[in-house]
């Protein structure tokens, strides 16, 4: 089969841009067109909460490239371009009224926030953080905000709690779950982050359900909950990321049990020649095979690279995921890989829990930080199932390492006898992961 000559990408986020770039790199002779409904591409949306927090001085720093650079690379980037129809039989799409033909299509349509089914959700002040220009507008609004509510402690919600508190805004979290980040973290691991946020002045309301947004003259004045009202000029809604699959479904692409587009290891959908990547797709979790969706920007970028390479005529494979994650909550780092105790117990995966309270450097070295590591392993074999960590530093590196160890089928014994860096300013003699594994081996 000759290499495809016309490749269209719908979506200009991390997945779409990396897919377009990789398709062009794989097949320089191809015409690559990227359509995005937004004004901007090639910026870091993950940096938005930190500009709003005033930790980063301006939004301009989040931009990595301009549209001219894509033109120079031979990519036809079309901004503020809405793809309204796709015809899979004729292999065409309609973008801002113009019909484009394609040999390969890559769908990277991302996500939308699930709108809470609550009265008053259309009031001014009920706000979503996603697009950079709207975030710049929000930044000007925050100067006049006295009280704010964040709905749900998803990772974005936690970042926004700290950002709002740092702006001097009276900030409340309303979360129906029992602890912070309950979809991904365990209560014992989340606790130091909760304390850190409280020390910044954030009021945390767990086990509380929002019931309505109330206001006057079209503007939000309070969020009512099953535990009473909370006065608020602003509510950041940080709910579930619902995959945007309207176009995919319109051409008969199969959607899976998470609502995300089903893809194979080549990121190809159920329709031949149609690929997908990023927040719009679901991929298997490595340990169970269970489909998962709504991962991180780095997952979106790597999926886009695989989709783009294959759409360009190359041969790349994306593996099941072990989902290393990490973030700063307040002033504490939290992270993990694969399953925590909450998820493992929910799914009923047999497991033992191994813990260690370790340190990040030599105990005598200035700035030494506590690092709590919790490992989950299969009873009997000791094969790792997942990990969670919280501490002052070194969480990200351990999460990355443990995700790789999980992928390679590492056991507690492997970790208990692992080699580790010992250098007083950057690592203690006893690596906390190794100590946790040693503690866990006693339970096998």
């Amino acid at each position: 089969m000759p290499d495809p000559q016309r490749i269209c990408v719908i979506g200009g986020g991390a997945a779409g841009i990396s897919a377009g770039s990789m398709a062009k790199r794989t097949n320089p002779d191809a015409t690559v067109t990227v359509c995005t409904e937004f004004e901007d591409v090639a910026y870091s949306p993950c940096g938005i909460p930190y500009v709003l927090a005033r930790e980063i001085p301006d939004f301009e720093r989040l931009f990595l490239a301009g549209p001219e650079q894509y033109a120079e690379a031979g990519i036809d980037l079309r901004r503020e371009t809405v793809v309204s129809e796709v015809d899979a039989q004729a292999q065409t799409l309609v973008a801002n009224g113009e019909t484009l033909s394609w040999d390969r299509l890559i769908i990277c349509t991302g996500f939308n926030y699930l709108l809470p089914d609550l009265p008053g959700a259309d009031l001014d002040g009920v706000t979503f953080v996603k697009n950079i220009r709207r975030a710049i507008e929000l930044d000007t609004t925050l100067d006049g905000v006295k009280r704010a509510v964040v709905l749900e402690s998803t990772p974005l919600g936690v970042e926004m709690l700290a950002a709002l508190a740092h702006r001097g805004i009276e900030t409340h979290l309303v979360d129906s779950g029992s602890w912070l980040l309950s979809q991904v973290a365990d209560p014992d691991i989340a606790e130091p982050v909760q304390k850190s946020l409280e020390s910044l002045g954030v009021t945390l309301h767990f086990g509380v359900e929002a019931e309505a947004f109330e206001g006057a003259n079209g503007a939000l004045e309070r969020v009512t909950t099953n535990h009473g009202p909370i006065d608020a000029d602003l509510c950041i809604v940080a709910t579930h990321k619902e995959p945007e699959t309207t176009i995919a479904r319109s051409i008969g692409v199969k959607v899976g049990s998470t609502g995300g587009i089903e893809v194979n290891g080549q990121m190809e959908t159920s329709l031949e020649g149609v690929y997908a990547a990023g927040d719009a797709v679901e991929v298997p979790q490595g340990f169970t095979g269970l489909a998962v969706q709504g991962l991180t920007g780095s997952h979106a970028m790597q999926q886009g690279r695989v989709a783009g390479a294959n759409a360009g005529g190359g041969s790349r494979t994306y593996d099941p995921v072990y989902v290393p994650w990490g973030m700063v909550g307040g002033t504490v780092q939290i992270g993990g890989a694969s399953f925590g105790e909450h998820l493992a117990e929910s799914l009923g995966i047999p497991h033992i829990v191994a813990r260690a309270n370790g340190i990040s450097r030599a105990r005598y070295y200035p700035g030494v930080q506590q690092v709590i590591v919790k490992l989950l392993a299969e009873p009997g074999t000791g094969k790792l199932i997942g990990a969670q960590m919280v501490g002052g530093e070194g969480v990200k590196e351990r999460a990355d390492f443990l995700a790789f160890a999980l992928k390679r089928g590492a056991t507690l014994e492997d970790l208990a006898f692992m080699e580790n860096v010992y250098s007083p300013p950057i690592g203690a003699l006893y690596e906390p992961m190794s100590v946790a594994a040693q503690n866990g081996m006693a339970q096998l």
Partner: protein
Amino acid sequence: MSAHDDIPEAVRGYFGHDKVSLFGEGGMPAAPPAPPGSPARKQGEAARADALAKAGTPGERPGSRPTARAPRARPGRWFRDHGEQALYEDTMRRLVRRYGGVPPAREAGWFWRDVFVPLYRAMPWRVRRPAVNVGSSARGWRRGGGSA
């Protein structure tokens, strides 16, 4: 009093959580914006100017309401959503008893709470393991080394 008050100021800037702290204290200076006149800088400045001009004015703009209503789920998703939520809530209650805290606000309906969850929990893992994957799109993928 911070645990780091006794650390010399010069050292704080180079090591420790301050290096990646939320509010930018210490550490290496962050990268400046792209050079003046560069495509990235121009795009950033244009974005800022446009957004500031529109701030406070009415009108729908890209990304101003990036929301979706809960879709009418197909049976596979409907079952997974409800089953998963019921199991999460049940586990949350167990962990709250173990670690302390408040119970979750939501409670699954009687079928999910009183029938599905106990039945699911009663199944041995060798039965639950394939049951978890019924209807999953994961078949045909390369398996990782950590597969159960």
